[in-house]
């Protein structure tokens, strides 16, 4: 079963990597250059999809963790772990590409404004997820503690989204998820949506592979226990 999941994950990952090449081509050679920010605005096509993917991953991790706390099914814990790792990786991309764009757009790599601070907080919460998981001697206890961290950590996501609307902020307001519809020229919107699709496929591919690793590890542990008895 896990081997089949791993194969499916590998195929999706390869599709995602091919899509990433396509996204780079669109970003560098097809989409028009934004008038005010110039070339630096092209970071948008990797920064925003990475943010969307990290929110999706953290959401999946929180959902699986919440249900795990209820049902205590190890498959849910494995899925939560795989998603949390993805959330952490894509949040890292957000946190490194954002400052590179910020230096050109705002003149500084970092400022302690609400959205940036809350995104960094999310990153630290998910760093804590892995630390808590491995901090206890009883693995079951570690899984439960980590599940609580994932559920609590996901509460940060809506605050990240509304922070630019609630507070005076350097970070621009949403340009796609708006009540009055997207405020982007069609070519920029298409490139962005393609980027979101590519990052989502890439995440699900790697998520399935990571989930398969945990499934196979559980199988190895089961075999070792059986051979010991």
């Amino acid at each position, binding site marked *: 079963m896990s*081997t089949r999941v*791993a194969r499916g994950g590998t195929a999706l*990952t390869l599709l995602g*990597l091919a899509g*990433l090449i396509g996204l*780079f081509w669109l*970003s560098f050679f097809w989409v028009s250059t934004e008038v005010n920010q*110039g*070339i*630096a605005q*092209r*970071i948008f096509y*990797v*920064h925003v999809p*990475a943010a969307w993917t990290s929110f999706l991953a953290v959401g999946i991790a929180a959902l699986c963790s919440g249900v795990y706390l209820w049902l205590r099914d190890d498959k849910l814990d494995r899925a939560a772990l795989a998603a949390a*790792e*993805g959330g952490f*990786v894509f949040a*890292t*991309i957000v946190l*490194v*590409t954002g400052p*590179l*764009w910020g*230096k*050109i757009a705002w003149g500084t790599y970092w400022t302690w404004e609400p959205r940036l601070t809350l995104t960094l907080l999310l990153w630290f919460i998910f760093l804590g997820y892995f630390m808590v998981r491995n901090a206890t001697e009883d693995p079951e206890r570690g899984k439960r503690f980590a599940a609580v961290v994932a559920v609590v950590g996901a509460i940060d996501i809506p605050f990240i989204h509304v922070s630019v609307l609630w507070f005076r902020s350097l970070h621009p307001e949403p340009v796609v998820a708006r009540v009055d519809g997207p405020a982007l020229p069609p070519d920029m919107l298409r490139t962005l949506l393609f980027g979101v699709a590519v990052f989502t496929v*890439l995440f699900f591919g*790697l998520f399935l*592979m*990571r989930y*398969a*690793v945990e499934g*196979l*590890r559980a*199988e*190895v542990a089961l*075999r070792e226990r059986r051979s010991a008895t």
Partner: protein
Amino acid sequence: MRSTIFRAVGLALAMIAGATPLLAQSAQLGQQSLRPYWHVFAAYALVIVIVGAWAFSIGKRLRDVESRLAD
């Protein structure tokens, strides 16, 4: 002949002296206008490095656990 060489060298030196501030200025302007390109390339390169590192790490863990299972 000699005076022609002196004149040519003098003219060249004057041109270089006159052009030095311009060269420095253009280099500075060049750096300013190229900076966003470096940031864009760095951002895209980091995406490849981070996603690649995660994919590589998962692939390695998958191979390890599969070989343990095969033993």
